[in-house]
C-alpha cells in the first residue's frame, strides 16, 4: 500500500480542517474553535480527535460528518474521527485571530473564564458580570439579557449605546 506515502501529512490536514466551518458559527472553522484536538497520520490510517463544545451540542454530528468528508476529499489515508470529552472544551481555546473574526461577524468574543470556587458568589453578591464590549459600536459596557442564547455557547446581550441586541460567546 503506497497510499500512506502519498497521503497528506498531519500539517496539511490541519490546513484542510482550517477551512471546515462550524455550522452554528460559520465564520469560525473547527480548528479556530478548538474543537479539533489532534491529528495523527501513521501506517494504521488518519485519526482526527475532536471534542464538542457542550454535551448536548446538536451540531456535533454535522461537524463529524463535515470533517470526514473534508478528509476524504483531501485524500487522507483511512480517515476516522474520534470524539473525546476530556479535557473538557473551554472557550480559552479560541485564539486571538478567531476572536477578531467573531467580533467582525457581530458576535462578542468570550471574555476570560471565571472559575470561582463558589459558583453562587456572583448571584449572591448581585455582582455585575464582567463587561462585554458591543461588537457593533465598540461601547465598552453592555447589558446581559439572558445567559442562554440561540445556541448553548452564546448569551444574549443588549447595547444601550447603539440599541442593538447581540450575541456573545460565553466564557466556559
Amino acid at each position: 500500500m503506497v497510499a500512506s506515502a502519498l497521503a497528506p501529512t498531519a500539517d496539511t490536514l490541519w490546513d484542510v480542517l482550517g477551512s471546515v466551518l462550524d455550522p452554528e458559527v460559520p465564520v469560525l472553522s473547527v480548528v479556530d474553535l478548538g474543537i479539533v484536538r489532534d491529528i495523527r497520520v501513521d501506517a494504521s490510517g488518519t485519526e482526527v480527535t475532536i471534542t464538542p463544545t457542550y454535551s448536548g451540542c446538536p451540531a456535533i454530528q454535522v461537524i463529524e460528518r463535515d470533517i470526514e468528508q473534508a478528509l476524504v476529499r483531501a485524500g487522507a489515508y483511512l480517515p476516522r474521527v474520534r470524539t473525546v470529552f476530556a479535557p473538557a472544551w473551554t472557550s480559552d481555546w479560541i485564539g486571538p485571530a478567531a476572536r477578531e473574526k467573531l467580533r467582525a461577524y457581530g458576535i462578542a468574543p468570550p471574555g476570560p473564564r471565571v472559575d470561582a470556587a463558589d459558583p453562587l458568589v456572583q448571584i449572591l453578591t448581585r455582582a455585575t458580570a464582567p463587561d462585554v464590549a458591543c461588537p457593533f459600536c465598540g461601547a465598552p459596557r453592555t447589558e446581559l439579557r439572558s445567559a442562554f442564547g440561540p445556541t448553548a455557547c452564546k448569551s444574549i446581550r443588549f447595547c444601550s449605546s447603539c440599541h442593538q441586541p447581540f450575541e456573545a460567546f460565553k466564557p466556559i
Partner: protein
Amino acid sequence: MGYGSIPDEPEFGAGSDAPAQVRPVSLEQSVQVATITSGVATNAHVEYLLRLADDRLILGHRLSEWCGHAPILEEDIALANIALDLIGQASLLLEHAGALEGAGRSNDALAFLRDETAFRNVQLVELPNGDFAVTIARLFLYSALQVPLLEALERSSDATLAGIAAKARKESTYHLRHGADWMLKLGDGTAESHERMQRAFNALWPYAQELLWGDAVDDAMAAESIATDVRTLADAWRSNVDRVVAAATLTMPTDSWRPSGGRTGRHTEHLGHLLAVMQVLPRSHPGAAW
C-alpha cells in the same frame, strides 16, 4: 388537562397535605425491584450510571415541555438550552452505561425502550412542571447538588465518567446560577411572586430529599472510587440551598415526609405519562432515523 398545558398549580400534593402513599423501600425490596423490573441491573456500576443519566433525561424532558410556553422569549430559550445540556449529558451517560452493560443496548435503546419501572430517576424530576416557580425551584434544588457531585465525579476511577463529569460541571454551574438568579428575583420580588415561590419551594422540598438517598449501589461505587457517596454531599448541597433561600427572603420549610423509591424503579403516576410522550415515536417507528 392536556399534556401540552402548563397547570397553574402543582398537580402533586403540597407539604403536609400530601398523601403518604410512597413508603420507604428497604434494601431487600430494592434489590428485588431492581432485579425484577430492569432485567439488566446485574452490576452496580451500570445501575449508578443509569441513576445519573435518568435524572438528566427526565428533567431535560420536563424542561423541554416549556418550549413555546415560557413567560418571556429569553426564558423560553434558556430552558430549552438547559434541557439540551441535560439531555446531552444523559445521552453520554447512557452510552457509557450501555457499553458497560455489554448487552448491545445503545443510548437510544436505553432512553426509549425501557419501561417506567426500569427508570432510576428521583421522583423530583418527573413531577409536572407546575407554574414557573415550581420549575425554577426544581432546577435550583437539583443543580445545587449537581455542581458539588460532578466536581467529586471528576476524580472518578472511571475515566469516561470523569470526563463526562468535567464537561457537565461547567454546564451545571450555569444552570445553578440561572435557578438561583430566579429564586432571588421571585422570592425577593412582589408579594405575589414571593408567595408563589415559597409555595413551590415547600411543595418540592420533601421530594428534593431523595437526591441524597443512597443504598448498596452507592456503597459499592464509593468502595471502588467510582463515585463519591452522595450522602456525604449533604452539607455542600445545604450550603448552596440555605444561602439562596436566605438571600431570596424565603423560609426553609420544616422537614416532613420524604418520598423515595425512584432509584429502585418506584415512581409517581406522572412518569408513565411522560414516557408515553417521550417514547412514542421510536416505539411506533422502530429504527426510524432522521
